[in-house]
């Protein structure tokens, strides 16, 4: 492993430990790692957006003009219009002129809405409605359809679930009697949906932790602990440095805990 790669991997391992230290309680290591992530992300995003947005979409297209003429002699001077609209967004910082920023915002929202409404309506409303209203394939229940019997029940569940779920959100009639029973089935269906989401979210969060274990073990410890690692000496230094910092922090925490406990014991008298 190259020294540079080794250094970055070690930094990654240290920052991983710093972030997980929050599980114990908020502390300076966590604060440092958190601020580093926010700072690096903001800087990275700014550079990425500059090089992939502004440069190719605006500056490159005005390139054949002269900047001291305001690029008005470029072969595509109309690209100055979105540039001006973009600049107007910065008037948000002035109390007096902040109203001007509504122009580019209104234009942006207008275009986005015009593009979005037909496609969103067609693909996220209509097609979902068609799927919910599709006919039930009764053949499947008797074993001679294209689905197996167990899967065939899902068609019934989807229909009942959709109707019951919609009825639960219908508040113009009191949820009593048969209507109330269907609404209750609706809330159970919703709860099953939320339960599935919760289960998958737990799996996702555990996955993040497992990936960190894999990183710490496979990408860092295994490589670093190999005596053939040309940076073995450096690894030893970093390992003991991190170990010392962790032990020092635990010792400080214990000291604070014991001190506070003594104070609490003295207080009643």
């Amino acid at each position, binding site marked *: 492993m190259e020294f540079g790669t080794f250094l970055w991997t070690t930094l990654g391992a240290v920052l991983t430990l710093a972030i997980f230290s929050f599980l114990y309680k908020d502390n300076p290591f966590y604060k440092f790692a958190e601020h580093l992530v926010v700072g690096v992300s903001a800087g990275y995003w700014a550079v990425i957006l500059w090089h992939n947005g502004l440069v190719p979409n605006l500056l490159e297209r005005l390139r054949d003009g002269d900047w001291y003429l305001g690029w008005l002699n470029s072969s595509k001077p109309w690209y100055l219009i979105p540039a001006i609209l973009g600049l107007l967004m910065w008037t948000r910082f002035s109390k007096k002129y902040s109203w001007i920023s509504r122009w580019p915002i209104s234009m942006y929202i207008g275009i986005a809405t015009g593009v979005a409404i037909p496609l969103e309506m067609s693909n*996220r409303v209509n097609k979902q409605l068609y799927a919910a209203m599709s006919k039930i394939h009764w053949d499947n229940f008797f074993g001679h359809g294209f689905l197996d019997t167990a899967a065939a029940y899902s068609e019934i569940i989807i229909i009942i679930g959709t109707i019951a779920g919609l009825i639960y959100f219908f508040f113009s009639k009191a949820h009593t009697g048969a209507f109330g029973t269907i609404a209750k089935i609706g809330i159970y269906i919703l709860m099953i949906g939320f339960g599935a989401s919760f289960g998958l979210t737990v799996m996702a969060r555990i996955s993040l932790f497992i990936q960190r274990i894999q990183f710490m073990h496979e990408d860092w410890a295994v490589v670093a602990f190999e005596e053939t690692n040309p940076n073995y000496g450096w690894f030893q230094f970093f390992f003991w440095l991190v170990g010392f910092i962790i032990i020092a922090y635990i010792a400080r925490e214990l000291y604070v805990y014991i001190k506070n406990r003594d104070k609490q014991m003295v207080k009643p008298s």
Partner: protein
Amino acid sequence: MNQNTNIFNKMMSMDRRWVFLLLIIVCVAAYFAPFSIPILIEPEVERVYNFVDTLAPGSIVFLAIDYDPASLAELHPMTYVLLEQCFRRNIRVICTALHPNGPSMAENAFLEVVDSCKVDKTYHGKQFMGREVVNGIDYCFLGYKPYPALVILGMGTNFRLPFPADYYGRPIDSIPMMKGIQNYDQVACVVNISGTSGTEYWISYGQGRFGFPLALGVTGVMGAEYYPYLNSGQIFGYMAGMLGAAQYEKLAENDGKAVVAMKVQLFAHFLIIFFIIIGNIGFFMDKFSKKREGR
């Protein structure tokens, strides 16, 4: 208040740090324990695998990598195994990353899979000789552009509209594999591996507008959200979270990090279920005790 109530109160007010500590111990122990668990394959994952596996050599798969390091744990295994499957079968790949942090994820995956493809391997009894996978011949990485909806719509007309050059600055027309490739009409399918709402853009502005076959690979958190699109036929296949990645690895006979992670998931879930049961017993017994004492 009797002694039982004290126990139940204690069960409910246990310091959450004990839960974290136990979870860490269980996860680390399960990770190092030498065993494996069976992984059942779901049809929605199998459909993605079969689709890619039955493509003719030279076909093109469009891979949209829209995730950042926060979703890397679940989505990187999907990207790795899918890319390796494509390259081993001489299927070409066009890739975009419509999340600002996506390009580094995509580059990282390409570098590692290109390295892995240099070695001979056998999948499903068929030997695949190691070969050099070349950027520009076997794959083309277009990179990132802001405003995913407009980029997706633009690519439907011509890839050259939003991406006149690839991620490395080479004009698209100078890239050998992009000769004669105009838009989605020339790709066999689009696979969107995403940890963001970019997936909705691919469904509405991509599949909905241009009608190409679309498969999704998403994080566990997004898992339940996109199943309705499978039922409506808007997507032909679906991989959700670490489980989806592990199932794909099993199908491809290319066990990786996701398969290893699933054994850890098993024990972590057992522990969480145990704590949920303990918490519920505490809650109901405490309620029962209070009722009995007339409080």
